[in-house]
């Protein structure tokens, strides 16, 4: 089965390779010439597609890396007579180095600012190549010889097309593998919910930086071929128009799909040539880069009508051919364009009777080696305070949590419970106070740092990875327990690790009674089950501290009982569980200790039976009988 699946997954690449090999035999020289450019830009577009689709970052200056590759190659060959292959390699490395240098500061920016910063980078590169002597100023570098390998010179469009074919096919294959790898899984999770991915230990910044560098490498390699094919490298190679063109290729093909990049580049290159010929015929006297009209219009139309690009169209057509009900356009596959880290849509709110979560699975999921001795201090919070402007959401909270206990955090709406969770898990930086997880200070650190210490959480406003399956969601939680990086991912070398991830993920899914839904998309699940997915995901991290924010909300009675049983067993395994919950009865029955918050303060902490009788707690929930009552009575008198 497995090898058959692997074969099938490589079949499209074989087909693509065959088509590309045959193409120069059947097409006119003119068409092959267009094809060569399509392949060159396509290679760069694959990289950009990884950056935009996988890392969720837009680069408006990708031509900068393309130009760096082209110029480096040209300079090394014409000026220093470096061997072609070596020059190409050096060109790619230089592109990637520059990406590393600018990526470290730039990728800390977000949204609009990153996009505009890359645009600025593009313009700086284009100014620099125009000004420097070594790049030949405005006229550029001439006389780059056609590539020669083993005495064979690739100088006709056909020959050059064949030279590029394996490069493009392999480039595409590597990119596809990366999307399916551990890195790809983590980044796709980041696109759905950055905060949840971080809380599962994904170092968003580091991964994005790697993909940024990789995409620069693709662009640099494309630049190398460009230099060879044109025999000239001029500042045009760094132009803004080229960046727009690459962007259009990726958007048209469909963000997040590497196949879309290559399809998009073929179409855009065709469009480019077509418009160049067509427009001057329609409008006499039209000169210059009139094909830009087409670029602009297509870009706008795609965004408005088909935000998922051709990939979305293809998905819709296949769905219709298979006779399935066609979903709404955007529902086909969530396009990164439409996700901004907002919580995924809820489900039907149904109350499935999933039966007892299976206990035998829990042992597989929780890793006893990672869990500290029962009763030892795992979390220590001191004088924790959070102020927003004039409002103090959390005020000087002190709290210790020990391994092997369930601590419930309760309190009325707006009491500061979730804010506490946010600070402990690293989502928010406290204004004041300290947080120690297993003796390490973590206040103000990023969530993935906290997760690496074995503390993870679920979210009150669900933060599931809506566009992947239940199993895919849970597999992200194994990020910290696996190691394969970008290179191993691209080469598909992590098969065994992937099998382990799947085994544990399935166990966690089964432990939450979700086995039947394992391969369904999470966004299609009812709300209650989405909540269980979050718990399964948190468990799959093999945590030693589990923070659950209202895990029972949306669950039916039996489901709540099942979850309670699971949490008890998790406690027996030595994990510390902290939960925020509104179902006071359930909390009192489940928790070893109860902490009550009101108006940002911790007003009570102790055994459930004690807390239940605490007058301050009763007052917080129902309003006080004495002070406020007196005030209200007095107020009522004023009215009547």
């Amino acid at each position, binding site marked *: 089965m497995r090898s058959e699946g692997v074969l099938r997954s490589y079949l499209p690449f074989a087909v693509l390779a065959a088509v590309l090999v045959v193409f120069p035999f059947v097409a006119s020289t003119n068409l092959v010439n267009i094809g060569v450019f399509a392949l060159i830009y396509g290679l760069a577009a694959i990289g950009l597609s990884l950056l935009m689709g996988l890392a969720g970052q837009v680069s408006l200056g990708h031509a900068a890396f393309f130009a760096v590759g082209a110029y480096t190659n040209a300079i090394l060959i014409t000026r220093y007579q470096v061997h072609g292959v070596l020059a190409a390699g050096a060109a790619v490395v230089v592109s990637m180095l520059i990406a590393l240098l600018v990526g470290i500061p730039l990728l800390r920016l977000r949204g609009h600012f990153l996009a505009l910063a890359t645009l600025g980078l593009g313009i700086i590169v284009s100014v620099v190549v125009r000004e420097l002597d070594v790049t030949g100023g405005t006229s550029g570098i001439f006389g780059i010889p056609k590539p020669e390998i083993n005495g064979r010179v690739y100088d006709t469009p056909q020959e050059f097309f064949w030279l590029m074919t394996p490069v493009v096919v392999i480039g595409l294959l590597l990119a596809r593998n990366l999307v399916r790898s551990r890195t790809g899984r983590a980044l796709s999770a980041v696109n759905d*919910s950055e905060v949840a991915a971080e809380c599962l230990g994904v170092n968003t910044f580091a991964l994005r930086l790697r993909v940024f560098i990789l995409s620069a490498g693709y662009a640099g390699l494309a630049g190398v071929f460009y230099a060879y094919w044109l025999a000239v490298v001029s500042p045009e190679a760094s132009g803004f128009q080229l960046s727009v063109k690459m962007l259009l290729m990726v958007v048209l093909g469909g963000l997040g799909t590497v196949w879309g990049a290559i399809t998009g580049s073929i179409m855009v290159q065709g469009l480019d040539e077509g418009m160049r010929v067509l427009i001057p015929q329609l409008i006499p006297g039209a000169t210059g880069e009139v094909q830009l009209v087409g670029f602009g219009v297509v870009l706008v139309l795609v965004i408005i009508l088909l935000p998922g690009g051709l990939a979305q169209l293809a998905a819709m057509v296949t769905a219709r051919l298979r006779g399935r009900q066609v979903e709404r356009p955007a529902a086909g596959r969530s396009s990164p364009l439409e996700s901004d880290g907002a919580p995924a*849509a*809820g489900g039907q709110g149904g109350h499935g009777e999933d039966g007892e979560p299976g206990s035998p699975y829990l042992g597989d999921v929780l890793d006893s080696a990672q869990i500290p001795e029962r009763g030892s201090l795992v979390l220590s919070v001191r004088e924790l305070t959070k102020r927003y402007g*004039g409002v103090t959401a959390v005020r000087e909270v002190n709290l210790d949590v020990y391994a092997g206990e369930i601590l419930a955090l309760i309190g009325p709406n707006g009491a500061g419970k979730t804010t506490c969770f946010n600070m402990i898990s690293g989502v928010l930086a406290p204004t004041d106070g300290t947080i120690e997880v297993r003796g390490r200070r973590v206040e103000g650190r990023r969530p993935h740092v906290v997760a690496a210490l074995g503390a993870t959480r679920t979210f009150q406003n669900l933060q599931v990875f809506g566009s992947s399956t239940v199993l895919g969601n849970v597999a992200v939680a194994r990020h910290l327990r696996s190691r394969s990086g970008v290179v191993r991912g691209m080469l598909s070398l992590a098969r065994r690790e992937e099998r382990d991830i799947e085994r544990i993920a399935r166990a966690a899914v089964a432990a939450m009674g979700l086995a039947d839904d394992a391969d369904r998309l999470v966004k299609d699940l009812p709300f209650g089950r989405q909540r269980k997915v979050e718990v399964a995901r948190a468990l799959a991290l093999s945590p030693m501290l589990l923070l659950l924010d209202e895990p029972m*909300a*949306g669950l039916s009675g039996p489901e709540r009982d099942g979850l309670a049983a699971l949490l008890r067993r998790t406690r027996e395994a030595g994990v510390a569980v902290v939960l925020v919950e509104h*179902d006071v009865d359930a909390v009192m029955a489940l928790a070893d200790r109860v902490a009550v918050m009101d108006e940002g303060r911790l007003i009570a902490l102790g055994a459930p039976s004690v807390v239940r009788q605490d007058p301050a707690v009763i007052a917080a929930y129902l*309003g006080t009988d004495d*002070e406020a009552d007196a005030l209200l009575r007095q107020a009522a008198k004023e*009215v009547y």
Partner: protein
Amino acid sequence: MAGLQVQGLEAGYDRLQVLHGIDVDVAPGELVAVIGANGAGKSTLLRAVSGLLRPRAGRVLLNGEDITTASAERIAARGLAHVPENRLVFPSLTVDDNLSLGGWTRRKDGHRAERRRQVLELFPRLADRICLPAGALSGGEQQMLAMARALMAGPSVMVLDEPSLGLAPRVVGEIITTLGRLRDDQNLAVLLVEQNVRAAFRVADRVLVMDRGRVVAEGTPDQLADDERVRAAYLGGGSTSSGSVDRPAAEARPAKATATP
């Protein structure tokens, strides 16, 4: 028919149905309180009434006029004021500007100065802070400003979402008193969503208890005061809440900000 009538209202988000057929009537000069646990659908009810969320079924009548499918802006112009959860004052604008914008839908009728005077009489504390940016006010003052802003449109119906949230008991008392005064002096129809049961019971003419998108009990405060269902809905009788998705978009903003540190 004056006041607010809600008939068989159903509403939700995406695939999640939150309200399963709600009926509420609020007559002029009447204050109806809606209580219930987190996630019961109280905020969703208000959002569906004021047009922030389009109902899926049922009708909403404002002074006899069907406003079920009207936009929030239109509904505001028709005389329904929604005081949102978390107050949502315009923080960088002054108290005075907040009030002026409250009267946006009536900006051309020439009674703004008169209404402003009335509103400031009702909330004298705001008069002292009239030139301060709203963001500099305390929580209680912001709540008062949110109410004052809503009153500047001269509404006939006012709906409030947890005005007591995060406020000290004394301020809650003040706000509840003012609500009673508005009902009695200005003949407003008031629909109040509250977590603070005692405060709500003090002032309400009638109380509805919501659970999982349905009204499960209804009556005068006296009738409901000792009702087990009220206690259950609050302190958790094991039958609370259909989820905490009942969260207004207003709150999604700060939530999003915190999600990207």
